[in-house]
C-alpha cells in the first residue's frame, strides 16, 4: 500500500527533517506514528498524502512509484487518501454538511446519493444537530470531528490523521478511534500520528516512532 525507501526531506537549504526513512504500510494495516514535537511527523504525513515531494529516496503509493508517475495521475491517487489535518482545514463558507460532502462531490457524486450517508456520519460523530453550522460557530473539538468525518466519508484506501484526538475529551477520542477501527476493518489502511500514549496503549496497534528525523519501529502490530 505504502512503501518508503531511504526517504530524506529538507526544506530549502535547511537541515534534513527526515533521514533515510524506510518502512512499509501493508494494505489494511493500522499504525500509530509517534515522536516528540518537531521530530518530523507532520512532514512524513505530508510526503504520504502527496503534499510535498521528497528531497531524496523512493515513495511507492498504491503501487505507483511517485518519482516516475505522471503529475496528471496524482489527483486520482489523492482521491484515494483521506486526510485529517492538524489544523482541520475546513472551508469557512461551507456548512458542516457541505464540508463533509466535499470529497464525494469531487468524486462526481450527486447530493441525492450521498445526503443520507453524510447525515448519518455527522450523527455518528455527535454533530447530527449541527449539519448547517459553519465552522466559525463550532468549537475546536466539533471542527475536528467535521474534519474527521470529511476524511472518512468516501471510505478512502488510506487514512492519514495528524493528532485527530487532540481537541476532544477521552470519551469522544475513543469513539473516533472506534470509527477509524471500523473503517480499518472494511479495508482502509490507517496511519495516525499522535502524542496520546493512553490511546496507543488501549489500541495496541503497530507503532513507529520518529526520533530526530529517523524512524524507529517500536511495536510490530496487533497481538
Amino acid at each position, binding site marked *: 500500500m505504502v512503501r518508503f525507501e531511504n526517504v530524506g526531506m529538507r526544506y530549502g537549504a535547511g537541515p534534513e527533517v527526515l533521514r533515510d526513512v524506510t518502512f512499509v504500510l501493508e494494505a489494511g494495516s493500522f499504525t500509530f506514528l509517534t515522536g516528540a514535537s518537531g521530530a518530523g511527523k507532520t512532514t512524513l504525513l505530508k510526503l504520504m498524502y502527496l503534499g510535498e515531494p521528497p528531497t531524496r529516496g523512493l515513495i511507492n503509493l498504491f503501487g505507483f512509484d511517485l518519482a516516475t508517475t505522471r503529475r496528471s495521475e496524482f489527483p486520482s491517487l489523492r482521491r484515494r487518501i483521506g486526510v485529517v489535518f492538524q489544523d482541520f482545514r475546513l472551508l469557512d463558507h461551507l456548512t458542516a454538511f457541505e464540508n463533509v*460532502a466535499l470529497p464525494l462531490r469531487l468524486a462526481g457524486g450527486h447530493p441525492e446519493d450521498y445526503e443520507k450517508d453524510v447525515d448519518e456520519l455527522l450523527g455518528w460523530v455527535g454533530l447530527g444537530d449541527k449539519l448547517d453550522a459553519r465552522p466559525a460557530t463550532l468549537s475546536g473539538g466539533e471542527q475536528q470531528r467535521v474534519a474527521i468525518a470529511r476524511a472518512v466519508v468516501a471510505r478512502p484506501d488510506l487514512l492519514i490523521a495528524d493528532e485527530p484526538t487532540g481537541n476532544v475529551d477521552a470519551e469522544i477520542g475513543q469513539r473516533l478511534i472506534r470509527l477509524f477501527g471500523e473503517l480499518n476493518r472494511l479495508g482502509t489502511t490507517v496511519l495516525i500520528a499522535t502524542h496520546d500514549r493512553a490511546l496507543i496503549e488501549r489500541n495496541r496497534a503497530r507503532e513507529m516512532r520518529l526520533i530526530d528525523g529517523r524512524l524507529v519501529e517500536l511495536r510490530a502490530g496487533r497481538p
Partner: protein
Amino acid sequence: MSGASIGKTGGRISPREAGAAPLDVVIGIMAFLAALALGASLLADRAADGWREGLAGRLTIQVLPPEHGAIAARLAAETEGALSVLKSTDGIVTVTPLSEQDTQALVAPWIGGGAVIADLPLPKLIDATISPGTKVDLATLAARLKAAAPDSILDDHTRWIGRLKVLADGIVWAAYFILALIAVATTATVAFATRAGLQAHHDIVALLHQMGAHAGFIARNFEWHYFISALAAATAGALCAAILFSAAGGLELAGIEPVPFLPPLALHFTELAWLAAIPAAAAAIAWATARLSVLAAVSRIY
C-alpha cells in the same frame, strides 16, 4: 465572506463575496471611462463623416469682376455664360447663383456692411451640387467655364475637404488612441482584481487540490464567479455612460446645447449598442484571467 454554497442540492464551492468588493467598483469605473471613450470615438467618427459629406459633391464658381471695360455688363454676361455651361453639364443637379445681398452678407463679417461694400467690386458666386454617385470631369468643366466666362474660377473644395479629412481623421484616431489606453488600463485592472481575489482564496484552491480535484474543476469553480462579478460591475459602468449620452441627447432635443461648438453628443441606438461590448470584454478578461491564474496556482503546488 459568506453566502450560499453547494448546499444539499449541489452548487458552487468557491465563496460568494458579500456586497460589492472595492475591486468591482474599480472595474465599474474603468468600464464607465472606456464607454465614454468609445462613445466619443463613435461621435468623432460620425461628425467627421458629416463634415466630409457636407462639402463633397458641392462646387462653387466665382466670376471675378473684369478689371477694365463695362464691368457690370461683362460680369453679368460672364455669369450668364457660366450658368448656361453648368446647367448643360450632365451630373449637376442644382445651380444657384447667390444674390448680391447674400454675397455682401458673406464678406460683411470681415470688412463691414453698408456703403463700403456697395461700392466694392464683389465677384458673382454660383453654388452647384453634383448628383450623389455621379462623376463630373472637373478639368473639362473648368475649361468650358473659362471659354464661356474667362474671369471664372471653379472651386471643388478639394483643398478644404483634404484639410477637414486630416482634421477629422486626427480626432477619430486620437479618440481611438484614448480608447486603446483605457482598454489596456481596464484589462490590467480586471486582471489585477481577479488575481487579488484569487490570492485571498489560495487556501481553498490548495485544499481542493489536496483532496484530488483536477485543476480544471477548481478553475471552473472560480472563473464563473469572476465572470459574473466583472460582467455586473462593467455593465453598471457602461450603463452610466449610456445614460449620460442619452441625457445629452435629451438636452439637445430640448434645444439646450450641453457643450457649445461640439457636434451633437447623443449616440444613435446602434452606437449605444456598441457600448455593450465593454461589459462583454471585461467579463471575458475576468474569466480568462481567473482560469489562467487558478491553473497557474495549481501547477505551482506539488
